[in-house]
């Protein structure tokens, strides 16, 4: 299949709770895709001021997914845009309502019919409560590539998942797979937040404008190793095949 006929892909990153490092996962995804020459446009639903937009200003627009004009900006252009991969970083707590919005405008049906690839990364928080979010999300995602993300990035005392409980919830969703985002050293995490650039720019020791940034090598090294581990995970789930329609 040539690039011209590539099926458009919508990647949604969401969580029903804030503070679970959702934007960090979105950043890791954008960096991974960019490093594999996949051009992505991103939408940030953290209105009015986007978090993701701060790190990837060139490719990110801030939208309100519950407003019709913004829905049109995202969905109507999936097919016409030169960029075939679209990532949406959904606002904290708005995953279920965003999915409902996608259903209501007929996107989920179109995905079911094979017009689009739909990939959902559902970031789980460090508590048992987040497992019940899967119940709310499950009805929407029968035709999505659904990934439950255990995000350890900024929490050393992560809830210790009880395999039996987890299995119960996993059983509710057909096609759900697990993705693990490993812990990143706390100070490295903080610096990479403060830097306000893509992760790869931080690792390359550059500022957003391309000047030398003078970040600590130790911290950059931690971020690079963490990125490599993420890449292993994304390779494992064959994310590139998914966005290229080969899966």
């Amino acid at each position, binding site marked *: 299949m040539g690039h011209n006929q590539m099926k458009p892909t919508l990647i949604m990153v969401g969580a029903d709770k804030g503070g679970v490092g959702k934007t960090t996962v979105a950043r890791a995804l954008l960096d991974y895709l960019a490093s594999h020459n996949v051009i992505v446009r991103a939408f940030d639903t953290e209105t009015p001021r986007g978090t993701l937009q701060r790190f990837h200003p060139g490719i990110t627009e801030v939208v309100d997914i519950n407003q019709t004009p913004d829905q049109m900006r995202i969905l109507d252009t999936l097919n016409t845009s030169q960029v075939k991969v679209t990532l949406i970083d959904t606002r904290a707590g708005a995953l279920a309502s965003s999915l409902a919005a996608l259903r209501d405008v007929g996107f989920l049906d179109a995905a079911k019919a094979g017009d689009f690839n739909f990939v959902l990364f559902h970031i789980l928080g460090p508590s048992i409560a987040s497992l019940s979010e899967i119940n709310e999300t499950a009805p929407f995602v029968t035709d999505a590539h659904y990934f439950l993300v255990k995000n350890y990035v900024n929490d050393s005392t992560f809830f210790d998942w009880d395999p039996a409980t987890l299995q119960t919830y996993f059983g509710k969703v057909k096609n759900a797979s697990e993705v693990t985002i490993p812990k990143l050293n706390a100070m490295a995490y903080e610096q990479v937040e403060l830097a306000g650039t893509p992760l790869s720019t931080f690792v390359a020791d550059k500022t957003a404008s391309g000047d030398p940034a003078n970040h600590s090598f*130790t911290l*950059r090294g931690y971020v690079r190793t963490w990125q490599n581990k993420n890449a292993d995970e994304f390779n494992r789930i064959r994310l590139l095949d998914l966005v290229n329609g080969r899966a």
Partner: protein
Amino acid sequence: MTARTFVYIVCSLSGRVGKTTVARLLGDYFLASRRAFRGFDTDAHEPDFATRFPEEVVIADLNTIQGQMALIDPLLADDGVPKIIDLWHRALEGFFTLVDNTGFIAEARARGVEPILLYVDDGPPRAAEVVARIEARYPDLQVIVVKNEATSQEPAAEPGAPQTLRSFRIGKLDPVLCATIELPGFSLSRFMLAPPPDMSIVLRAALRDWIWRIFSQFKSFELRMTLSETEHL
């Protein structure tokens, strides 16, 4: 051709085998040849190396991210100033985890910095096993075994024992001299540059000989490294 900057990592899996002595000898070797060095002491509780060289050596507690940054970041400067790490045996595993987690060795190479591991022999069969493990984990890292006879109770090696390219030998030292060099404030480099006139000439000659044998091994190591990077040879 540009000369590489060497980072000497003095380590051992065991305590009390003379790591700080080796780090100290190296530091004094540079000072005695009127060159600067930068040192790092990873034992935050008893920083003997840092105490010996308050000007040159900083304490880096690898249990903290600040300590990790205080160690790793300066090591990557290709400034021609040799670096010496006195790696506390309890910090050994943490150090290699840090090296792996930051991709230190590849980054060092890319910047013209050459890490060299000095493993202080802590006796058979342990030393050989540990060195083999380190070599398997870091195939292109230079590992040199340091045989320290200065404080050991075993008889000294045969004078004609073969000196391999990949080992340093620190000879046996008379107990009186052992006590002398252990005195706080006794500097081996100052001793070499200006021997104290009030010291017995017998002791002076013996200590000078002991130090000279060690320094000449460091010197020939440096010469070998310089030769190996000379392109026209």
